[in-house]
C-alpha cells in the first residue's frame, strides 16, 4: 500500500558535498556513496547512489583528498523512523593494482535544517587471522563487507572486527518542509521562539507565585 495521494508527507532536501577525505596511508582514492533509508521514505528527486572521481593526496602538509563531489537529493517521508543515512565506501588501488576497499562509513543526515559539516570516520573489516591478513595482502583481496550498507544498520555488526582507516568530511545543507506541521519538533526555526515564550511564561508564573 502506498500512501494515499492526500496523505501528508514531509520533505527533506539535502544538498552538500563529499568534500575532503583524510586517509594518511593511501593514495588514489575514490568514493562510492549511497543513501540508506527506512521503509517509509521515498526519494523524490536526485541521485541515490554515486561514485566520485579518483583523486590524489594533496602535497601540502594537510595531505587531504579533495573530491568536492556534490550531493543533491530530496526525500519525502511519513515517518522519521529510518531517517536517511549516507553510506560511504572508499576504494583505492594497492601496490599490485587491485581495487581494494579503504574504508566504509555511514552517517545520518543531520536532523535539523541548516548547514552542517560532518566528519565520517571510516573503517574496514579486519582479516580473521594473521595468515589471512598476509594472503589477502598478497592476493589483493582484502576482506570487504558483502553489502556495504551494513554499516548503516546495527544488526550483525557484532561479528566483525574493524580497523579505523581515516575520515571523510561531508557538508550537508539540509532543508525541510512540513516536519513541524506533522508534529515533529526538531528544535529548528520558529520552534525556538515558542520554546522561549513558554519558558518566559513559566518564569512569569514563578515570579507570580514566589512572593507569597
Amino acid at each position, binding site marked *: *500500500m*502506498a*500512501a*494515499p495521494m*492526500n*496523505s*501528508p*508527507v*514531509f520533505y527533506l532536501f539535502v544538498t552538500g558535498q563529499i568534500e575532503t577525505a583524510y586517509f594518511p596511508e593511501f593514495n588514489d582514492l575514490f568514493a562510492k556513496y549511497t543513501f540508506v533509508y527506512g*521503509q*517509509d*521514505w*521515498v526519494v523524490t528527486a536526485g541521485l541515490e547512489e554515486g561514485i566520485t572521481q579518483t583523486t590524489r593526496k594533496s602535497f601540502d602538509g594537510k595531505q587531504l583528498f579533495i573530491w568536492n563531489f556534490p550531493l543533491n537529493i530530496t526525500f519525502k*517521508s*511519513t*515517518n522519521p*523512523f529510518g531517517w536517511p543515512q549516507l553510506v560511504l565506501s572508499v576504494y583505492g588501488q594497492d601496490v599490485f593494482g587491485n581495487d581494494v576497499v579503504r574504508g566504509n562509513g555511514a552517517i545520518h543526515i543531520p536532523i535539523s535544517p541548516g548547514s552542517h559539516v560532518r566528519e565520517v570516520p571510516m573503517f574496514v*573489516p579486519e*582479516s*580473521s*587471522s594473521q*595468515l*589471512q591478513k598476509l*594472503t*589477502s595482502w598478497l*592476493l589483493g*583481496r582484502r*576482506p*570487504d*563487507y*558483502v*553489502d556495504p550498507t*551494513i554499516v548503516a544498520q546495527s*544488526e*550483525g*555488526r*557484532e*561479528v*566483525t572486527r574493524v580497523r579505523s582507516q581515516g575520515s571523510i568530511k561531508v557538508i550537508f545543507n539540509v532543508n525541510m518542509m512540513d516536519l513541524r506541521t*506533522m508534529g515533529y519538533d526538531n528544535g529548528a526555526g520558529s520552534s525556538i521562539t515558542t520554546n522561549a515564550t513558554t519558558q518566559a511564561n513559566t518564569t512569569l508564573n514563578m515570579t507570580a507565585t514566589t512572593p507569597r
Partner: protein
Amino acid sequence: MALTIEVVIIILKARDDEDQAESQQPAGTEDETEDLLLDDDGKLTRPLKARYVPFKERLEKENQIYYIPSVNGVDFSQKTEDTKAEPRLLEDEGFYVGDQPAVTTRNIRFIEERISKQANKGTKWFDQGGRLKYLADPLKQKVTRPVIALFKDDEESSLKLDYHLLTLLQPIVTSQDSYVKSNAKESQDYQLDINLSSLTFTHHPLMSHEHVFHFRILRQYYEYCQRKKGNTANYYTGKLQALKEAIFNLQHVIKSHHSEDIIAIQATDRLKDYKFEVSNVRRMRDSEDYKDRSLIKSMITTWNELKQLREKQGYANTSTKLIMHKKIVDKKEDAVKWDKEIKDELEEAREFFDEEYQEKLANYKKELKEWKRKNKGKKRRKKRKQRQQQDEENPAEDEVVGTDLFKPVPPDNFNEQQALIEIKENAIKCRRRPGEAILFPELVNTVPISPTSKCPKAEAQRRREVQEWHAYIRILFNDNEVHRSATKALTGDFNIHFGEICKAKIIQWPENIKLELYEAGIISSRLIAQVFIPPPNSMSHAGLNPEPEAFQFSSDLKISYNHTGVGAGVSVTATGSEHPMTLLMSGDIYSNVVWSVDENGCPMMPAIPSVSKEKQAMQRVDAVAAIGARGIIDIQKLMDWIVQSRLDPNDPANDSLLDILRACGVSPDGKVYLPDYFRLNSLSHESDLGTEEDIDKSKRFKILKLRSQEASEFRNLKQVPIRDIDIPDDILRDYYKRLEEDEKVDLTALSHRERVNRFLSKVREEVLQRSRIAQRQYQLSDVVREDFLPDIGTLGASVGQLLKPRRPLRPVRKERKKIAAQHLGMMNVKILVNVVRAFDIPIRKNHPRYTEDMLYVNEIMTISDDQTQSTMRHDNTTDIRGIRNLDAEELQTEVQVRPFVEVMFQRNIRRTEVADGPNPAWNQQIVMPFRAPHDDYSSNNLMTVNDDIYFNLFDEEVIDMLSDDRERGTNIHRRKERHWLGSIRIPFSTLYTNSRIEGSFRINSPTVLLGYSHAKSAQVESGQALLDVGKGSRSQTYLSMFVTIEPPLAPPPSIKEKVSLFDSKEDIKLLKYSQTWLNEFESKFSNREINILVTDINGMSVFVTRYITPQNPPVEVYQEGVEPTLENSETVARFVSLIPFISDSVSFAGLCDIWSTSSQFLQMLAGDEEEHAVLLCNYFLYMGKKAWIALGMGIPEGSTAYVVSEEANGDFMFWNASTGDHFRQHDAHCPLQSIGCLIGRDNVYANIQSNDIPSRMSMDTTNTKLWKPFFNSSFPYPGLSSVQEETLVYHATDSNYVGELEERIELVLKESIMSWRRRFVTRWNRYDYKLRLYFELLEESRRNASEERHLNELSHILDSYKLSGFPIHMPYTDIEPVIDAVYSTGVHTVESPDVEFALATHIHAYPNSVLSLWIYVGTVTKISSA
C-alpha cells in the same frame, strides 16, 4: 632635540633668504613689465620684480625681527607672572615626579629663554618649580629579548630537565562524582596511610593437632586474663552486698515511720526497686560466675587433651604449659557463706512470691465472684429452660446459653521445698562449692619443642611446609590495586609480620579499602580471604599514631594434607578427642588506615562532603533506592523505627522515609512489609511516547507495530500515512478478519485449491517467524567477504594447473563472476540456451498419402525425363527433379524427420534452425529475454518467479501446396507444418538456484505420437509402438543443451548452515553427534549432497529418518497383500508423480527446504522432490520392498531426492518420484548424476566411495567401507519415533467436480485456441467423443499394457481423416499451466484452410483430489477422396 632643530632651522632660513635675495637681484632688473593678473580667487595681483635689499640694511631689519635666545638660562622670576612667587619643588614635598627624558641643559635653557620672552612670560609652559613642563619618560625599562644566560660551568645544568611528580590539577569529574573535590586554592594532595602490621592465624591448615589445642588454650587463657582484668563477678558481688545493705536500711526506715508517711511510701517504692535490682544482679553474678568456672574447666580439659596428645605422639610442637595455682580456703567459713547465701536467696524468692501471691489472690477473688454470679444465672436459666421445654419445645433458647465459665483456681502457696532445691541446683552449677580450692591458671612456655630430627616423617614434612608457606597481601583502594606487600614466610607460631605502611595518594573518595590475603604459590597465588577496612574518618590521622586494629578473616577454602597438618574446611578428628571438628582457616590481620600527615603535621585529607552526590541524585528518583544505596540490612527494623518515631510528615527532611512508608503495604496483622517488587528503571515512564491505550487506539501505531513484526499484509508496506485519518479502516479490518478466519473457518467448506493456498501461507508465516530469528544470527561470512585460506590441496591444484598440458581444442567453461542483485539495476537479463544436439528423435512413419504422392512424383519424373529437349528446359526440370528427388529420397528412406527446437519463456518464443535426421546437431545459441516481476531483481523476488521454460521439439514438414501440376515447372508453393514431438519443462527457479543447467535431458514425449515412431521400434508392429508408454527408456528422445542466465545472478543466500540454529526437538546428544558426523563427511566429500537434519513445517529441525516409515497407498492404486511387481510399483509411482510439483524455493522464497510429512503433502497437494520421494519410499516400504531415499544431484533439477528400491532380482531401481520415471542402476541416461547419501528407515548411509555416479557405485549398504552408516555400534539407533501418521486416510474425489472441471478446461482451451488464431476460422471436429474414450484407454494402459482392441476405434477415424495430434498428460493443478502447455505445442499455428481441430479432455481422478489430466489436441484433415 626638536627644539634645537627648530631654532637652527630658523637661523638657516634667515641665511637662505639672504642668499636668495642676492641671487634674485639681477633677474629682477630685467623684467619690469607691469601686468595686472586675476588670480584664482578673483583678486587682482600685480607681479613685481624682486627688489634687492642691501645686506647691511637687511641685517638691521632682521635684527628688529629676529631674536636669538641665549644659552645662559633664565631666572625663576622671569618664568612667572607672579613675581613674589617662590619656586615650589614637588619632589622635595614627597610627590612622585618620575624620570624625565634626557634633554641637554643647553637645549632646555635655550627654550626656556625663548618661551619666557613671550607675552605672558610663557607661564603655561612652566611648572610651579619653574621648570619646563614635560612628560615623564614613557618607555619602560625592560629587556625585550630574553638574555640567554650561557655560563660555562652551568651550561649542562641549564639544559637538564627537571622532573616533578605528576599532579592532577583538575580531577576528572565523572558522572558518579566520586572524586574528591580539589579546591582550586589549596591544590592539596590527599594521602592515606594504610598500615599493614601483621597477620596472625587462629587456624591454619598447616597446623598440627597439637597446634589446634595450643591455640585453643591460648585463646581461652587470653579470655581468662581479660575476664580477670574486668573481674565482673567480683563487681557484681560487691554490688549485691551494697544493695542488700541499702535494703536493710530502707526496711529500717519503713519500720521507723508510719506506713502512711510519705517517706515510708517512697521508701517502699524504692525497696521494691532495690529488691528487683538484687534479683537481677544476682542473676548476672551467677552467670558471670558460671562463665568463669566453665572457662577454667574447659582450659583444664583442653590442657588434658594437649597433654595426652603430646604423650601419644611422643614429640612436642608447642611450648605451652598450663600451671594451676591453688588457693586453699577454709571449708567451714565457706560453708557458712554458702548457707547464708542460699538462705538469702530463699528469703528473696519468698518475698517475691508473696507479692505475686497477693496480687494473684486478689485476682482470684474477683474472678470467683464473677463466676459465682454467672453460675447462678446459668442455673436459673436452666431451670427456666426445663420449664419451657415442658410447655413448648423451643430449641432456639438453647443457644442463648452463655459462655462456659471455668471455676477459677486459687493460687498455690509458696513451695519452700521446691524453691530451695532450685536455688541449690543453681548454686552448684554456678558457684564454687564450699571448701573447693580457688584455681588460678597460668600459661608458661617451658615445654621444649622437639627438634625436627626426632619427629616422625609426617611431622617433619609438615614443619617443612610451614617454612615454605608464604603469603602476601594486596591492598585495593576502590577496587584498584594500590599496593602489594612483600611475600613473607610463615613463622613457627603462625604469624606473619609485614610492618609495611602503604602511602596511597588518592583522588577518589575512599569508598572501600580491601585487603586481600594471598597464599603465594610458585606458579599462581591463591586468594585466601578478603578483609574490608573501613575508610578512615576525619579524626584519624597518622599524627595520632593509632594502634593497628585486628580485622578478623576466615576462609572457606578446603585443604587437606597427608602429613600431620590438620587442613582446613574438612572434618578432622583430633588424636586426643573423639569429636570430629571442622576448622576453617581464620585469623586476624592487624592493620589500620589513617590519613597521612604532611611535613607541617597537617592531616592530608579532603573536606568530607556532607552527602554524596550519588545519593542526592538517587533521592530525587527513588527514596528506597536512596536509602538502599547505603546498605540497610533490616528493612523491617527501619520500618518499625519509622512507625515508632512518628516522623513529622511536613518536614522535608523526612520525605524519603515517608516515601518508603507509602510504598509499603500493611499486612492484616498490622505489620508493615515492603513491596515484593523493585523497580529496574524508575525513569522508564518518562521516555514513553504515550499511554498504552493511545498507542493501541492509533491505527498508525498498530500498523507500524505489525510491520515490524513482519505480518504478511504489512511486511512490505511503504509510506505508512502520518495521520490516522489517512489510513483506510479496511486495512486493519482485513487483517483482523483474516486472523479470525484462520481460526474459525471450516476448512472443508472451501475448495481444495483455496485450502492449499491458505495452508501454505500459514506454514510460510510460521516458518518465516522462526527463520527470522535464525537469520538474525549472523556469522562473519554473512557480513564480510573474505578469501578462504588456501590450503595444501588448493595450492597443489593451482600448481597442478600450471603443469597441465594445454589443450586448446578442448575449451573448458570458465566460471563467471556472479553479480549481486543490487548491482544489477536495469540491466538486461537474458537466458542463454545452447541447444547442442538431440538423440533418437522419432521419425515419420510411412503414410498413405505420401505413398500416393511418391507414386505420383515418380510419374512426373518419368514424364519430365521424357521431355528433355532443350538445355533450358532441361535445366528447369533438373531443378524440379532435384527437389523431387530429395523428397523422394526422404520418403523412401522412411527415416525422415526435420526437427527444430523452440524455446518458450514468458510467452516469448525463439527457435533454432531446422536440422535433419533423428540425431540432429544444432549447436545453436538462443537468447531469451527475461523480465523479473516488478523489475525487481533481488534474490527474494527472483525466487518467487514461477515461470517455466519450455523446450519444444518440433518436426517441420514441408507440404507442397501446388494443386496444379502444370505450374510445377514455374512455381513453388509450399506450406510448412510443424508437429510437436515433445517438450522439456524447466522451472525458472531451478535455473536460478543452479545458475546453469547442462546435460542431456529426456524429452517428455506424448504417450502416443500419431505418425511417428522411433527408429529402432519402427520395425516393431505399429500397434505396439503406439502403446509403448514410457515403459522402457530405450526409445526415449534426449536433448543435450546448456542453459544459463546472463549476466549470472547471484544465487540466493543459502541458510543451510543456519538450519541447525533452528529449534530442534531432537536430543542434544544426537544433534551434537550429527554435527561431528556431518563435518567429518563434508571435509572429505564437500560436494556430495547430504542432509540429516531437515526442517519440518514448523521450522523445527527433525532427524531425517523420522520421515521414513511404511505408509499405505490408496486402495485404488495398490491392494494390500498383492505381490509387489514392477508394474505395481509403476502405478504407485505414477500416483505419486501426479501430485503437483512446487519447488520449496517458490513457496518459501528465501527460506530453506521444508520437509512436510506425507499427510501434509497430500493435504497441500504440492511439494518438491523430497516430499514426492518420501511418499514413494514409504509406499514401497509398505509394499514390502526395500527402499531408501537417495539425496544427490540430478538433471535438470540440481540437488534432488530419488527413491532407490531393490527389486526382486537384486537389481536396484532409481525412481524419480516427481515424474514417476524409473531407471535401472546401469542406465547410462539416468538423470541422477550423483548420490551423496541414502536415507533408510532407521539409518543414514553416507557415500564414501570414490565414485558418486550411480552406475559406478555399489549399492551394498552393509559394506561400511563404501557406505558410512550414521548409527553404528558406537552410536546405536535410539529408536526415533516417526513424524508420519501411521495410516494415511484418503478421501474419494468428488466425481461431479471432476466432470465439471473437465468441461471447463475443454471450454477454456477451445476459446484459447480460437483466440490464438484470430486470422482464421477455427472449426472443431465432431469425433471428440471417440477420442475421449480413447483416453480412458490410455489411463488404463498405464496399468495394463496391451489392450489392443480399443485401438480399432481410433483406426476407424484414421481411415477417413489425417489425424495429426497428440495427447498431453499432466497432473492438474491450475488452468494456467494447462493453457501454457497447449500453447507451447503450437497446434494453433497450423494454417491449412481445411484443417479441423480436435480437442478432448479427460480427467482421471485418483483419491485425494489427485487429478490426472489428459488433453488431446490435434488437427484433423479429411483425406480427400481425390
